[in-house]
């Protein structure tokens, strides 16, 4: 049994909040640069150039890439041979509090969805915990901006809607979002499970590097096909027209009920942020 103090988790979460918000993952940076080189539409090229300039400034100056530093989504994978000394949930929230206050990040969390008073420190985190074999704790912090979150949708398709129903739904969500979620976007898709699990899968899909395809060749091909389809919409960077509407479509799946075909599409902007550490 490995002992990990809750305080260690606080420190790691604090640091990850700041790093994730200021340093765009290399795979996303490279995807933007690659798309700029392939983009035939002049205004789209210009915007992709500004986006590059922006993430470079953030990287060098240690400032947030985007002012919407998000709700702090925290994913913990806890090895079953680990014992955590102290209150885990409080430790995570304390890490978010310190990260957002000490890191000069924007506090975007309201305590109640109706009366909307800001909590002042961006807590509580949106926390997901998974128990896995081993004696390590894997921590990922993924700040999620709401310009893109608001453009996400879920649909309980019928089994008879099949593959075509899934494809049509993904394209519809991206087209309806249009310029609102700050394209070029990353499209996270969750297919299967239950209503809630499909949405969770779509969020998890956004954690996968944009240059890594699904391990299942069928879904890897579907990801490529859907990327071509959404880029054929012509929405382009910022919605001003162009072929770079999305950088990637990442699909995750789970077994589901004989009566159902849940499909969730979670949209992320070009600032698709996540940073991980292992204890």
């Amino acid at each position, binding site marked *: 049994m490995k002992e990990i103090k809750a305080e260690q988790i606080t420190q790691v979460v604090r640091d990850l909040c700041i790093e994730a918000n200021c340093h765009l993952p290399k795979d996303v940076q490279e995807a933007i640069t690659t798309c700029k080189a392939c983009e035939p539409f002049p205004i789209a090229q210009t915007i992709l150039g500004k986006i590059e300039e922006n993430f470079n400034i953030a990287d060098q100056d240690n400032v947030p890439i985007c002012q919407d530093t998000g709700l702090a989504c925290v994913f913990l994978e806890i090895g079953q041979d680990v014992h955590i000394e102290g209150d885990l949930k409080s430790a995570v929230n304390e890490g978010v509090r310190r990260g957002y206050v000490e890191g000069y990040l924007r506090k975007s969390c309201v305590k109640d969805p109706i009366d*909307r008073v800001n909590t002042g420190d961006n807590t509580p985190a949106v926390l997901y915990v998974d128990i896995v074999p081993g004696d390590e704790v894997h921590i990922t912090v993924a700040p999620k901006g709401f310009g893109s979150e608001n453009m996400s949708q879920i649909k309980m398709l019928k089994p008879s809607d099949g593959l075509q129903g899934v494809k049509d739904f993904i394209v519809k969500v991206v087209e309806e979002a249009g310029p609102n979620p700050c394209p070029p976007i990353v499209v996270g898709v969750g297919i299967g499970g239950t209503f809630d699990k499909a949405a969770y899968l779509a969020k998890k899909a956004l954690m996968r590097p944009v240059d890594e395809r699904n391990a299942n060749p069928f879904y890897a091909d579907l990801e490529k096909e859907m990327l071509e389809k959404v880029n054929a919409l012509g929405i382009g960077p910022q919605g001003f027209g162009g072929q770079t509407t999305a950088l990637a479509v990442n699909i995750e799946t789970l077994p589901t009920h004989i009566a159902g075909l849940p499909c969730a599409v979670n949209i992320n902007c070009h600032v698709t942020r996540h940073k991980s550490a292992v204890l």
Partner: protein
Amino acid sequence: MEKRITTPLTAEVTKDLHVGDNVLLTGVIYTGRDAAHKRLVELLEQGKELPVDLTDGIIYYVGPAPAQPGQVIGSAGPTTSYRMDAYAPALLDLGLKGMIGKGKRSAEVVESMKKNDAIYFGAIGGCGALLAKCIKKAEIVAYEDLGAEAIRRLEVEDLPLTVIIDSEGNNQYELGRKEFLAMEK
């Protein structure tokens, strides 16, 4: 080709701005997003005076990140504009001439813009670090309790913007996409 404009944003200037124009804006603008708009329109409904004069003014839909030591302001890119659609026509009727944001607007807002000779500008969403460099001064002028959502008076220099919807209602989102798709054929 970039057009340089300065505040106040008069009807004379807005009539000369056209969809797709790249603009460098210098002068004084105010920030405002969801919660501040709600309060402003509630004041109007009660027949009370607003805490800022919006005549020939510009509102930037932004909730900036806090300033680090030595900074004027933290990252400060646009938020999605449609959430302000319910409030915008009332402010345009008061003399507001420009809105800076990103994303689609409602038909009601576009009609009000045409009636009031107003412009909807886009700043590049997700480029808050870059845009903050154009902000030379920032001070809270109302609703400090709202934190990032407080109304701030900003002095900007050469803030890079694009005319998304002009005062005749022409829309860059529609035209740009159409032009790209025609080019691909």
